[in-house]
């Protein structure tokens, strides 16, 4: 059974803290993605990676960075958390190429910044 796991389901951090969200996939997928999900706004792409050490900005990269040191692991980093980054964060992975639209999502991390 294919699986994308995220390190935490719920996380509470203080304003200004550095936050790490981890994602691991076991499907040997080339592509990995970080989205945030907010009510009424749907899923918005923050960053994606198509290979180890490769990354590209999505639609809303401001305030975020990412790291991909191993193929199966993709980390989202909030350098200095702010209250407007309170959200649900979803990680996804997919094959690269013609099947790239078939994305597999993790269960999400609900981050609250106080």
């Amino acid at each position: 059974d294919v699986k994308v796991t995220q390190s935490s389901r719920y996380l509470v951090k203080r304003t200004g803290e550095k936050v790490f969200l981890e994602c691991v996939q076991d499907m040997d997928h080339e592509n990995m993605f970080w989205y945030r999900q907010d009510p009424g706004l749907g899923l918005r792409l923050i960053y994606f990676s198509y290979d180890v050490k490769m990354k590209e900005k999505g639609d809303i990269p401001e305030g975020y960075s990412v790291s991909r040191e191993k193929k199966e692991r993709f980390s989202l980093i909030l350098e200095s958390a702010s209250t407007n980054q309170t959200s649900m964060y979803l990680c996804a992975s997919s094959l690269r190429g013609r099947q790239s639209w078939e994305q597999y999502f993790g269960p999400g991390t609900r981050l609250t910044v106080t």
Partner: protein
Amino acid sequence: QQQVKQSPQSLIVQKGGISIINCAYENTAFDYFPWYQQFPGKGPALLIAIRPDVSEKKEGRFTISFNKSAKQFSLHIMDSQPGDSATYFCAASLPMYSGGGADGLTFGKGTHLIIQP
């Protein structure tokens, strides 16, 4: 900026009825149109997808209808059941970049569907 517009934002249907969710897009370069289903506390999961050269695709009670000239596509859920209650997202995919880079999806804002027993 590529956009996919989804409606309605929320929908209540009686058990056994037909649920219909509509999406429209602008960019004619999109080459695949998947639908994702999300239950509370879970990540979205692929439900069904269609290519733009196909007008309809059916999988069980779920059907995508695609109108290329109108740049619209819709999800129909026949004989809707309470277990179908979820949030549904339409999406659109661009072809793989020629110069490297990942293949992202553009999502609609979602429809919260409730099937009343």
